[in-house]
Structure formats: structure tokens, C-alpha cells
């Protein structure tokens, strides 16, 4: 096998075992039904948009714990601002997300606080703010246009949007100088700075993008559910990180790709979907995802040790 073919094989059969998973899932009645494929597509499209942002931040050597809370923020903001028109509502979801991302990026770059702590702080602040604003109750929308945005047949609009975002992100990361700079910053900040790159600004941009995408994804979720819930997205940071790590990203930065993350996304989404069909209770599902994340982080560290020795 050529190296290229080997890599493709590994991508679909080993890391992650996506094809084996899909074959096994065929034994679950109804897995490949149109109805279930639609559910799967809906589930992964909202998460997928978040995963793309997370991947960009991780390539730049960071992490974004706040994506779930920012999703909730985007959903609530979109629903609350709907009376001002759909365009305002959609833009506001992204803008509020971008604002949260800018805050994270500022903490990381200006105050030089560890990305996990910075974005954890932003996560808690954002979550607190929307819980306070909504009095912990979901906000409901009956706007036809908004609800239609959550539809789309046979392919959900959200799925098409995710694919468009993924292609754009892929092209920007691989085809633009900006993408090279993000990879360079993630691999070695000092070297990047010595090469004349504006490290702080680049990292800030990555957090801003991640926040904007999370807010936007939250808006799409609210459109599908017809409500903006202040409590959604609790486990999103971890499942998004799992998808990115499966896709080749590393907690050390400088590695990862949108294509890989999308494969990771389908793997995690497919696994959750299969567990749902099998009636696995959600707390067991959490244990599975958490265990997988643990294994991924250990593997990431072990791989790094191998590489540096």
C-alpha cells in the first residue's frame, strides 16, 4: 500500500475505527433508515460547527471549554432577538459568540492565563449570565422563518451549513498564509514570533472564530428545537475535543485538520446514535465518551513522548 492509501485506511478503519463501527451498527434495526440518518445528520451538524472552531483553536495550541455555554448563549440570543428580524437574530448569535471568544482570547493572550482556565472562567460566566437572564427557563420561538431554518428536506439546512463551514475552514487553514501561521503558532510560539508572526493576534482570532461558530451553532439548534435553552451544551466541549483529537489534533498544538475532525465527528456522533438506538441510558453514554476522551488524551501524551525521544 502506498503511504497515502495507508493513511486513508488508518483514518477510516483504525484511528478511528469508523467503518467497523458503521458495519456493527448495521445490526441495530433502523440504524440505516432515512429517519435515523436524518437524526444523525441533525445531531452532528450542530456539533460539527463547534468541532471546527475547537479544531482551529487546538491547532493554534489552545483549547475552548466555553463552546457549550456559548452555544446556549447563541440560542437564547437568537430567540430573544427574533422580533428584530431573522437576519438580526442570526447575526447576533454569531456576534455574541464572537464576543465571548474575544474575551477568552484576551485572557489567554494578554493576561497569559492557561487556555483551560481562561475558557473555563468564560464558560462559567456565560452560563451564569444566560441562566440569570432567562431565569433558568428556556425561551420559546414560534417564528415560522426561524423554525424553517431548523428544517430542510431531505438534507437538513444545518448539515449543509456545516459542510460549507468545514470546506471554508479547510481551505483557509491549508490554502491561506493565515492557516500556515496558525499551525506555526501552535507548534512553537517563540519561533513564530521570531519569524515575525503576530502571535497574540492570531490566537485571539482563533478564539473569536470558535466563539462565533459556537454561537451560530447554538442558533441553529434553537431553530431546530424551537427554543433557546440556557442549559444545553454541558458536555459539548468534551465531545468536540474528542472529535478533534480523534481527527489528529493534539493538546500540544500544531497538529490537526478539519477533514480529520469531521471523521472524528461522524465517529462520535455515530457511536452516540447507536447507543441511543440500543437504549443505553445517557449517564452510561457519558461514561463511554468520558472514557474515550481519557484514552485519547493518554494516547496523545504517549505519542508525544515517543516523538520527542
Amino acid at each position, binding site marked *: 500500500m502506498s503511504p497515502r492509501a495507508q493513511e486513508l485506511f488508518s483514518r477510516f478503519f483504525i484511528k478511528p475505527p469508523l467503518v467497523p463501527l458503521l458495519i456493527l451498527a448495521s445490526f441495530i434495526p433502523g440504524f440505516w433508515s432515512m429517519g435515523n440518518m436524518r437524526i444523525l445528520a441533525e445531531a452532528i451538524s450542530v456539533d460539527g460547527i463547534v468541532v471546527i472552531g475547537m479544531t482551529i483553536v487546538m491547532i493554534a495550541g489552545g483549547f475552548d471549554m466555553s463552546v457549550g455555554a456559548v452555544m446556549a448563549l447563541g440560542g437564547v440570543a437568537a430567540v430573544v432577538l427574533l422580533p428584530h428580524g431573522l437576519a438580526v437574530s442570526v447575526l447576533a448569535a454569531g456576534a455574541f459568540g464572537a464576543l465571548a471568544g474575544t474575551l477568552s482570547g484576551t485572557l489567554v493572550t494578554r493576561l497569559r492565563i492557561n487556555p483551560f482556565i481562561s475558557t473555563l472562567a468564560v464558560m462559567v460566566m456565560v452560563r451564569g449570565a444566560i441562566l440569570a437572564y432567562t431565569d433558568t427557563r428556556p425561551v420559546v420561538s414560534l417564528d415560522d422563518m426561524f423554525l424553517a431554518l431548523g428544517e430542510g428536506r431531505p438534507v437538513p439546512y444545518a448539515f449543509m451549513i456545516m459542510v460549507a463551514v468545514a470546506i471554508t475552514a479547510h481551505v483557509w487553514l491549508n*490554502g*491561506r*498564509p493565515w492557516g*500556515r*501561521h496558525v*499551525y*506555526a503558532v*501552535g*507548534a*512553537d510560539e*517563540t*519561533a*513564530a*514570533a*521570531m*519569524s*515575525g*508572526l*503576530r502571535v497574540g493576534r492570531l490566537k485571539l482570532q482563533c478564539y473569536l472564530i470558535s466563539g462565533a461558530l459556537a454561537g451560530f451553532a447554538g442558533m441553529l439548534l434553537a431553530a431546530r428545537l424551537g427554543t433557546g435553552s440556557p442549559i444545553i451544551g454541558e458536555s459539548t466541549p468534551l465531545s468536540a475535543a474528542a472529535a478533534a483529537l480523534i481527527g489528529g489534533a493534539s493538546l500540544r498544538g*500544531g*497538529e490537526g485538520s478539519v477533514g480529520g475532525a469531521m471523521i472524528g465527528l461522524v465517529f462520535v456522533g455515530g457511536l452516540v446514535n447507536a447507543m441511543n438506538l440500543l437504549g443505553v441510558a445517557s449517564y452510561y453514554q457519558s461514561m463511554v465518551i468520558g472514557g474515550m476522551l481519557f484514552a485519547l488524551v493518554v494516547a496523545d501524551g504517549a505519542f508525544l513522548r515517543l*516523538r520527542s525521544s
Partner: protein
Amino acid sequence: MSAQTFVRLTGITKNFGGVHALKGVDLDISASEVVALVGHNGAGKSVLVQILSGVFPPSSGEIRVMGEPVSFHSPNDARHHGIETIYQTLALADNLDAPSNFFLGRELRTRFGFLDKRRMAEAAGKALADLNPSFTDIERPVRQMSGGQRQAVAIARAIHFDVRVLIMDEPTAALGPHETAQVSTLIRRLREQGIGILLVSHDVRSVIDLADRIVVLKAGEIVGTMTAAETDEDSVVDMIIRGRRREPADGSAP
């Protein structure tokens, strides 16, 4: 001195918290001149290099380029003034290939602002082949390359762009005898082209033949400046170790 002074540093100091890494350094670099900066580990050589290349500003003091006072806010500012640097750490992004590192921060673009990967690979390939004809497999992450190849990437990218003053911080640290000789040849060639070179090393023997002037740095201060032709290894080593003050015979203007 008849040659044009490209760079003049006056009274450069640098403090990191309580550490006084530089305590008032004066240094000139002129056209077609190789200035060797020598000194012990921790003398402040790399700090001086990083100030001159715009990595961080001095705590006090003045930098003049072609007689004009300048302040560098980033390595790009120094590059715009024709100051290129080969850092001791090489400053390569390990995950990127040689062309990407070669053009990092000044990529060739297509009309629409996308990377012109083909032109970048060609130009970098040519520049690297000039330096080392056997260096061909350049489109792989530089982490997979040998120390000498990585050094070649760092050297090639520094001399590819319009350079007036080239700073080399331990440029031969990772090289074998053959490549070290190649770098010496390169330094002589660049000097003939009128480039001013600041050659940093703590290996006196390797610089004494190459340099026009030897400047000794000790604990953040210049303790001596010697004309290379009029001194020998022992005197320089003596100065590095004992840090004797400037000899009257040197007679450089204040």
C-alpha cells in the same frame, strides 16, 4: 573607518525582572564587515541578538540604522530595515515543511491571496540547493530533518531576502566539519557582497579567521574589542575569561 555604518547600537541595556542581561552595550556593524561577538554562556549574546532583530525592545539605549534612530516592535520591523537573523534556536516551526518555514510570515501569494505553493517550493528548493546540493527532499515537516538540514533552512531563509545586516547566532552549532566549512565560505561570500555580519559564537577558534573585529561580551558588558588580524586565540580567550578592560591600542571612538 571609511565603510558605511549600517547599524549603530548605543547604551543598550536589558533587564528581565532583576536580571541585568545587558548593561550598556555600544556596537557598530558596517558594510562588508564581519563582527564576531564572543563570550561565555549567559554573557548576553543572544539577548543582544534578539534586541537587534526586534524580538523584544531594549530597556534603554538607541538603535540606529543608516544613521536613523529606529524602534523595532517586531522582527518584521527589523527585516524591513534589512536586518535578517539566524537564531540560535533556529526559530523553525517543526510541523511545517521547508518551503513553509522559508517563507513563514512573508508567503508568496496568488492574485487572490492564497498561498502560491508551487512558486514557494521552487524558490525554497533553489535556495536550499544553492547551499547544499544534496538537500532535495524538502517538502516534509522540518522535525524529520537532520540538524544540519534544519540549520540550512534557517540560513537560507535569512539570506534569501534583501539583507543588509545578517545576524548569525551560533550558526554552526549543529553542523559537522564539512558544513561548517561551507558556512565559512558563505560568510566570506556575503561579506564580499557588502553585507555586514554579526557572528555570534563562544568558539573563538572558529571565528578568529572569519572576523574583522572581535567583540568580547562578559556579564552584559563589552570588555574588549580587538582587530582580528592583530590578535590571537589566546588573547581573546584571556579576555573572555578575565574580562580585562579595553586596551588603549584599540582606540575606537567613543
